[in-house]
């Protein structure tokens, strides 16, 4: 096997491993959030959690696959490592951005859920009689 094929294989292995690690972190720790949001409904929380993680995998693996091609030849081990670090760095940045986006989604869902039970911010000025109809 020449250097380029080894670089590609290493790139795929490292990127897929990192994606799986971040997705597992999200899956484990996001669940607590979602159970709270859905008022203890664990079935619904697990379902939403699973759907979010599937989306996360699809976007990241899609990006990794699209970014595979190097566009230049790699002749030495040094060039291989340099190319690899550039590619993996990009994948890490995208993973980081996706991770923060997911955190933002969690906090947004949670804020929505807690806001629905909040009492009015101000007290009334007076009371009156209301006739229905």
């Amino acid at each position, binding site marked *: 096997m020449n250097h380029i094929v080894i670089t590609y294989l290493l790139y795929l292995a490292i990127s897929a491993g990192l994606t799986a690690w971040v997705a597992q972190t999200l899956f484990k720790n996001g669940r607590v959030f979602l159970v709270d949001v859905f008022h203890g409904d664990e079935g619904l929380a697990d379902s939403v959690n699973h759907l979010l993680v599937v989306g996360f995998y699809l976007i990241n693996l899609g990006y990794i696959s699209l970014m595979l091609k190097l566009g230049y030849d790699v002749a030495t081990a040094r060039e291989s490592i340099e190319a690899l670090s550039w590619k993996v760095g990009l994948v890490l940045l995208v993973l980081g951005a996706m991770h923060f986006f997911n955190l933002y989604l969690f906090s947004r869902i949670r*804020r929505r859920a807690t*806001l*629905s039970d*909040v009492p*009015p*911010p*101000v*007290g*009334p*000025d*007076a*009371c*009156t*009689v*209301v*006739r229905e*109809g």
Partner: protein
Amino acid sequence: MLTLHVLYDADCDLCCRVRAWLEAQPKYVDLAFTAAGSAEARGRFPLLDHQATLKEFTVVSSGGLVYRGAKAWLMCLWALREYRGWSLRLGSAELMPIARRVIAWASGNRFRFNRYSAWVGRG
């Protein structure tokens, strides 16, 4: 189910556009609109000072609680899904005096805004 009855000035173009905007927003709490000082308003709230509702924006909850001026606006925001967070922020002790002043100024000048009111929703 809680409903907030909104008594708005039907003679004011800006108020009617704000009403149309409020009607179009997704809500936590139903808003029912009644022209201030109208026969309908007098029939529904027999003990309310209707002359005062023409001067100051008023919201009455289905339970009979009356909110006036800035408080009435905050109650409208509180009813909306997209703006409940804002109603809590503006209703805090730090921002409430500013909100009260801005709203008093805007409602005192509301007829002057008629020519700009096309900016607010489509009524």
